[in-house]
C-alpha cells in the first residue's frame, strides 16, 4: 500500500484537503478509489512491501521545510525506503498535525521523523506514536516530552551568535545596529535574539538602537525597517532573526537609498542568491538539506539496528561571499552527506 504513496501524492492529498469546498465529492471519490486500489495490491504482495518513513513538517509555505522534504526524499530514494509527507494545510496548525498523527498511526509507518509544530502541545501526539510502538526521530524543534530514538537539531542560539559576530567583525567592531525579531513566544526567536544580544556583549562599541518584531514575515519586517530608518539616521547593521525578514529589510534600505550590512538566519536559496549578489552580508544556518537527509537516515539506521546517538547537534555554517558556493547548488541536484561525516564518535 505504501508503494502507492510517494512524496508527491502525499503533497497533493494535503492540498486536496483544502480544495474540498469545491470538489469534495469528486476528490474524495478519486482518493478513495486510489487508496482502495493501493491497499489491494499491497495486500497481495506483502513480501515486496518496503520500509516506510513518515515525515512531519510544520507548513507548506516556509522554503526551509521544502528543503527538508526534498532532502528527506533524496535520502529515502538512496536508502530504498518510501517517504510519506504529512504537512498541515494551515501553517503550524496544532489540531491538524494532531489529526495527521492519528492518520499516520492507522497506516503504521516503520518509523517517523517528526518536526513538532509546537514543542509542548504535540507531546500527546508523540505519546500516541510511542503507544503504537512506532520509533520516532525528533528533528529540528525539540519536543518537550515523549520518547524519541534521537533528537537531531540545530543550536539556534549558536547560529545567531556566530552570524552576529561575523557581522560585527565586518563592521570593525563599531557602529549602530537594529534587530528585527521573529514572532514573540516562539522559542526559535527567543534563542536567536539572545544569540544576537550575547554577541553584542563581546563588541561594546556596537550600539543596539532598537530591537523590534517583524513576526518572521517579510512584509512586516520591511515595514518595521522603514519605520526604524525614519527614527535612526545612521544604521550600520541589521540583524534579522530569519532570512525572509533580512530580505524585507534590504528592500526597505534599497527604497530609502540607505546602506547597511544585513544578516539573516536559515540559509535559504533566496538568501544565498542575495549573498552572491552582494546584498546580504551573511546567513547563518545548520544546512537544512543535511538535516532533512540525516533525519531519514537516522530512522533507517534505527530500523536496521545500527547505532543512533540520543542527540545530534548539526554543524553551523555562516554563509558569506567567500563560502556560499557550497549552498549554491539546486537542492534537487544535491547529495546527502555520509552519516559518519556529521556524526562523529
Amino acid at each position, binding site marked *: 500500500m505504501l508503494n502507492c504513496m510517494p512524496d508527491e501524492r502525499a503533497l497533493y492529498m494535503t492540498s486536496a484537503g483544502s480544495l474540498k469546498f469545491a470538489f469534495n465529492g469528486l476528490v474524495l471519490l478519486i482518493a478513495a478509489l486510489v487508496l482502495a486500489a493501493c491497499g489491494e495490491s499491497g495486500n497481495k504482495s506483502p513480501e515486496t512491501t518496503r520500509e516506510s518513513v513518515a515525515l512531519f513538517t510544520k507548513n507548506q509555505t516556509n522554503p526551509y521545510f521544502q528543503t527538508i522534504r526534498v532532502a528527506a526524499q533524496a535520502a529515502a530514494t538512496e536508502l530504498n525506503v518510501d517517504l510519506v509527507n504529512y504537512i498541515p494545510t494551515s501553517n503550524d496548525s496544532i489540531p491538524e498535525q494532531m489529526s495527521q498523527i492519528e492518520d499516520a498511526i492507522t497506516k503504521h509507518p516503520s518509523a517517523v521523523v517528526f518536526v513538532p509544530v509546537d514543542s509542548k502541545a504535540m507531546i500527546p501526539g508523540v505519546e500516541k506514536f510511542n503507544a503504537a510502538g512506532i520509533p520516532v526521530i525528533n528533528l529540528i524543534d525539540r519536543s518537550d516530552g515523549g520518547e524519541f530514538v534521537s533528537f537531531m537539531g540545530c543550536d539556534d542560539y549558536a547560529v545567531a551568535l556566530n552570524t552576529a559576530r561575523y557581522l560585527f567583525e565586518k563592521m570593525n567592531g563599531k557602529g549602530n545596529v537594529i534587530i528585527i525579531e521573529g514572532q514573540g513566544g516562539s522559542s526559535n526567536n527567543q534563542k536567536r535574539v539572545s544569540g544576537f544580544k550575547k554577541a553584542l556583549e563581546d563588541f561594546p562599541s556596537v550600539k543596539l538602537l532598537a530591537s*523590534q518584531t517583524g513576526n518572521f514575515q517579510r512584509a512586516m519586517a520591511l515595514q518595521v525597517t522603514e519605520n526604524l530608518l525614519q527614527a535612526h539616521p545612521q544604521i550600520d547593521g541589521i540583524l534579522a532573526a530569519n532570512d525572509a525578514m533580512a530580505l524585507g529589510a534590504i528592500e526597505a534600505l534599497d527604497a530609502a537609498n540607505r546602506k547597511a550590512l544585513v544578516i539573516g538566519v536559515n540559509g535559504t536559496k533566496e538568501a544565498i542568491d542575495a549573498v552572491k549578489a552582494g546584498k546580504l552580508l551573511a546567513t547563518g544556518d545548520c544546512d537544512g538539506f543535511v538535516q532533512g537527509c540525516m533525519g531519514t537516515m537516522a530512522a533507517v539506521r534505527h530500523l536496521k539496528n545500527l547505532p543512533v546517538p540520543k542527540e545530534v547537534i548539526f554543524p553551523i555554517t555562516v554563509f558569506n561571499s567567500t563560502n556560499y558556493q557550497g549552498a549554491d547548488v539546486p537542492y534537487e541536484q544535491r547529495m546527502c552527506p555520509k552519516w559518519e561525516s556529521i556524526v562523529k564518535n
Partner: protein
Amino acid sequence: MKYRLIGVALIVLALGLSSHAFATPSNLLNVLRQASLIFLSASGLTLVIVGAGLDLSVGANLGLSACFAAAAIKATGTLSSGFAAGVACGIAVGLLNGLMVTKLRVPPFIATYGMLWMLYGVNYWYMKGDTIYGFPPDFRALGSGDLLGVPIPVYLMTIGLLAGGIFTRYTTYGHEVYAIGANAEAARLSGIPVGSRLILLYTLSGAMAGLAGVIYLARLNSAEAGIGSPLLLPAIAAVLIGGTSLFGGSGGLAGTLIGAIILTLVLNGMNLLGINSNWQPLVTGVIILIAALIDSVTRRHAELHA
C-alpha cells in the same frame, strides 16, 4: 466620519510630542505609503461589506494573484503580463465568489471562507514551498518608488479613493449598493437587480485584491505562497475601524482610509518609540479600542445635542 478623524488626530498629536522623528515629511509619507497598501487590499472589501456581504478571501486572493503575477513576469519578461495575470486572477476569484453567493445562495462568510482555503491550496500546490524573487527596477518602483517625492502606491490609493467616491456618491449603481446593504429584500422589491449588483461588488473586491497583490509583489520584490495570509485581518479591521458597518448599508472608502492610517500609525509609533516587542500586541489592541471608543462616545454626544 469626522469623529474618526479625532482618533487619528489624537494619535498624531501624541506621537508628534513623544518622538522627534514622527512629524517629519519623510515619515508622514512613509506612513501614507504603508497605509495605501492596506487601503488597496481593503477597498473592494469595503464596498462588499457596505452591500451587507463579506469577502474573507481577499488575503488569499492577494497572495495567489501576486504569485501568478510573479510567475508571468518571470515567464514572459514583460511587466504588463504580470499586471494582467495578477488582476485577472483577482477578478476570476471575485466573480466565483459573487456567483456562489448569488446563484448558489451560499452565505458570504462560508462561500468566501471556503474560497480562502481553496486559494491557499492552489497556491501551495503551485508554489511547492518555493519563492519567486528578483524583479526589474521599473516594476519594483510600482511598490517602492516615488514620483515627485510622493510614493507611487499613494497615487494609486488616491485614484481608488476618488473613483470609489464617485461610484458610491454619484452613480445609480453606487446608491443601489447602499440600498441592498440596508435591506436587500426592499431593494429587490423596488426593482434593483440585487444579484447582478452583488456579483459586481465581489468581482470588484477580487480585482482590487489582485491589484494589491501586484503592488505587494513590486514592494517585496518576491512572492511566496504565504504572502497574503497575514493581510486579511488588517484589511477587515481597516474597514470596520473606518466605520463601515458589518451589517451593511453604511460607511465608505474614506473611512477605510482612516482605518488603514490608524493601523499603520500604531506600528509606526511603536517602532519609533522602541516599544518592547512583547508589549506590542497589547498596545495595538488598546489603541484600536480607544479609537473605537472615542468614535462611539463623540458620536453619541453629538446625537444627544443635535
